[in-house]
């Protein structure tokens, strides 16, 4: 900015040259203020979503910029929520970008005293090994009377109420196929 423009931009001068003589409005507006734009406007895209907390199912609009969620707010189109959100829904952005969110695998070895890091692929392999090992050891093919059981009671699972239907479907399908029957979720609690 040239000195000249700078001077012309000087609010004291603008107080004299514009209608805002007392310097409480247009005369004192900064260039930054003049360019103020909501970040929803400059977002790369908006996708419609659903609040992940309770089961009211409020509509959310998720704004993304630079492949990062920058804003989550109520979706006025939703006939359920009409754009409104409770404090939890309103805090969804913090759920996603939260300071405490752990984004890497943590591993605690048996009798270990602290967390260790583990590559995701390695963790998956280890879990697959544990599943098959326990399953083989605890497999029940039939009961005492010879009725088929085809199952293991050595493995259990809890959770699903916060997950998608598609996820619950794969969970139930896979667990059932490997004979895990102790599959439960919050609906029981």
């Amino acid at each position, binding site marked *: 900015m040239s000195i000249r423009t700078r001077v012309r931009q000087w609010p004291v001068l603008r107080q004299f040259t514009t209608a805002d003589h007392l310097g409480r409005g247009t005369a004192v507006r900064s260039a930054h203020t003049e360019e103020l734009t909501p970040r929803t406007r400059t977002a790369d895209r908006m996708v419609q979503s659903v609040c992940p907390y309770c*089961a*009211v199912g409020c509509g959310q609009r998720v704004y993304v910029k630079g492949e990062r969620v920058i804003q989550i707010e109520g979706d006025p189109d939703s006939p359920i929520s009409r754009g409104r959100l409770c404090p939890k829904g309103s805090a969804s952005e913090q759920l996603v970008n939260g300071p405490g969110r752990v984004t890497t695998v*943590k591993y605690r070895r048996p*009798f270990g005293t602290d967390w260790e890091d583990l590559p995701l692929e390695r963790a998956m392999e280890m879990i697959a090994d544990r599943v098959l090992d326990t399953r083989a050891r605890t497999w029940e093919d039939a009961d005492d009377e010879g009725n088929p059981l085809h199952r293991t009671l050595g493995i259990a699972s809890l959770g699903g*109420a916060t997950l*998608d239907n598609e*996820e*619950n479907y794969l969970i139930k399908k896979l667990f059932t196929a490997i004979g895990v029957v*102790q599959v439960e979720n919050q609906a029981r609690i």
Partner: protein
Amino acid sequence: MAECHPVGFQWVMEAKARGATIIHIDPRFTRTSALADLYLPVRAGSDIAFLGGIINHILTNEKYFREYVVSYTNAATIVSEDFQDADQLGGLFSGFDPKTGTYDTTSWAYEGMETAAAAGSRVVAGRQPQANAGEAGDEFGGRGAALPHSEVRRDETLQDPFCVFQILKRHYARYTPEMVERICGVPPEQFAKVCEAVTANSGRERTTAWVYSVGWTQHSVGVQYIRGAAIIQLLLGNIGRPGGGILALRGHASIQGSTDIPTLFDLLPAYLPMPRAGSRSNLDGYLAAIKSDGQKGFWTAADTYMVSLLKAWWGEAATQDNEFGFDWLPRIDADHSNYHTIVDMLDDKVEGYFLLGQNPAVGSSNGKMQRLAMSHLKWLVVRDLNLIESAAFWKDGPEIATGEMRTEDIGTEVFFLPAAAHTEKDGTFTQTQRLLQWHHKAVDPPRDCRSELHFFFHLGLLLRDRLETSGLARDQALLRLTWDYPTLEGDEPDAEAVLQEINGRHLSGDKAGTMLSSFVEMKADGSTSGGCWVYTGVYSDGINQSARRKPGSQQSWVAPEWGWAWPMNRRILYNRASADPDGKPWSERKAYVWWDEAAGKWTGHDVPDFQVNKAPSFRPERGIGGPDGLAGDDPFIMQADGKGWLYAPSGLLDGPLPVHYEPLESPVRNAMHPQQANPTREMFPRRENLTSPSPPEPGSDVYPYVVTTYRLTEHHTAGGMSRWSPYLAELQPEFFCEVSPELAAERGLEHLGWATIVTARTAVEARVMVTDRVTPLVVGGRTIHQIGLPYHWGVGGGNAIVSGDSANDVMGVALDPNVHIQDSKAAACDIQPGRRPTGPALPRYVEEYRRRAGITVETGTARMTQHEDGT
């Protein structure tokens, strides 16, 4: 509702603005109470008496909606003369076996069906497999129990002494306003206001809705609470009509979905039961236990639903010859529900545990038992957004502090895998009104974070890879499974492909490969697939209907083009009942779905929940079952007789009608019957789960107060999604207890000071909130103090912004026999000023209380109440 579902509460405020009366009945004065026209404090665990009082009011004052009751409910149906009601047997129904703690429900049946209830096998309390009994109540999420046929004798004058209506009258005669006061602590004049409001606002022109949450379900008689409300609503004609219903406000984004597509031990998708070990363990036997061909309604097509499911799962490998792979399904033979599994962990029977977005160390009853159980595991996989207490129990859990566990002694191998957030994956949530809503992925999950879809798909691939060459029979179910979902970027399985599989396809014929548009298209011959028959239609016309987002402002008030509701996009179930028997709206005000005589079809604001061309006057021929057996005035199309069940002749394990029992831990004697608590409750008598004595057992004065738990607006359940959020944590930073000024005076508690709350399980400390919002109740001439504990806090989570003792640690575990849910909404406790002891002094402190109360493992476990005179 304002407290836990604030955005849903906007509709209550809308109703209020239009003149609706809002009544709030709760042990605790909440944000809902603040906005209600009438608030009634009630003793936790006494609601069956309260609801029964209303039923009695309706019946004795002839306030029921007679035309609705006669036509649409089983009020006129005649019940077996063998049936004996609870008032005749001291609080038990006919058929109780004190040895097993279970009922033989044969005598509860409709007249002429007395043998029928004995079909099939069942799971009972106490885990003993027992053949020759009816199905358990836990399977009836989407239907009534089976009947052998629909030929029932009815007396539409409702005068027959054995008709349901007369049984109801006799059963509820004892539920007088005075009895309500004696049990619930609600003064008769206050109670009368509720009765007056509910009955005045029901009928042709008006409807009343009941809304509940886990304050009703989490009791050892939880199912019967809901049954109580169902009876009121059926008597008043409030089911199937706009502004009516019994609305469950569920607490998790897809808790309804996780019941429909169940991550539950006893169900397959869409309320098909898990097969049971035993004589009927082939497909036909399995189907015969679900339905009979003689009964009415859509459950008679269960074979098409089941075969389509098997085809979805095993595809080409599912053939007529192998019963579509039915034998690959694992069998259940006992109650394998959550708390049983926990107990099995303590007994070292369980090696591995997956926790998927759930925090039982804080959120489940008897948190200490949960944590102790997990320390017995060989391995634990936790998938969550934050390092929740259940993942870190071995490190900083409360038992480490007390010395009851030592980190170095815990052999559990723990894998914490970070999960993807809702914005980082595609998929549907099913909300509390059965509406499926697609949420679109916005961004990729960061670093190691993955969706469950990703985790389970790839876990499945890894397992198959390892077993590829296995010839073992047990591995075939996995190897033959359809597990070839297309993947998107990042090897993420395509959620739409999964939803399509759920919806189902035509597998042969002209339409082969196209999506089913309705479950009615399903076939039992293997020519269709479908992973969840109630969801069929969500992908009709090849379009993801759950992703529809036509703005609410651009469509009718029913908003049928927003998302998709199961079944068949119907927004109100049983909406045929919104019209009178002739098919006309009960009133113009309440018109919803009606018969268009000229067009010869049902029409209206919603998708009719009825065969669309079936005239109101239609009457089936005798002996016809299934959908075609439904008469034109049978609105309850999923019920075996087409009627709403005031009285449940089968399907429930603890009685055909609700009876008031005291909570397992209660400060008072049951005023209604000699039987103190639900005799069929499931119990876990062991050191880790002690129960304090209730009258008539001695020692109950050691724990003189009632403690209940609940949620706050600012937090979410066990805190895994809120205590890590600074904005939410700062709104309710500390664990507190709510007590009345009277109790504070009695115990010397100071506002904002500390208090220790102790039960038979353990003791926790909380900041004290002395408030007039908690009201001492006079119950049977005695003042009962109730203590409220929000249960959002826990100790030992990594990086949590706020932490504190966990309310669920003080609650015990006993289960409703029907659905295996714990009774965590009323327990006995003591409260003392000051902080609790720490370290090893804490278990000693708790033990001293137990000693004074004379608690042993057997305390509170007697099924039949010992009478005061020792009989």
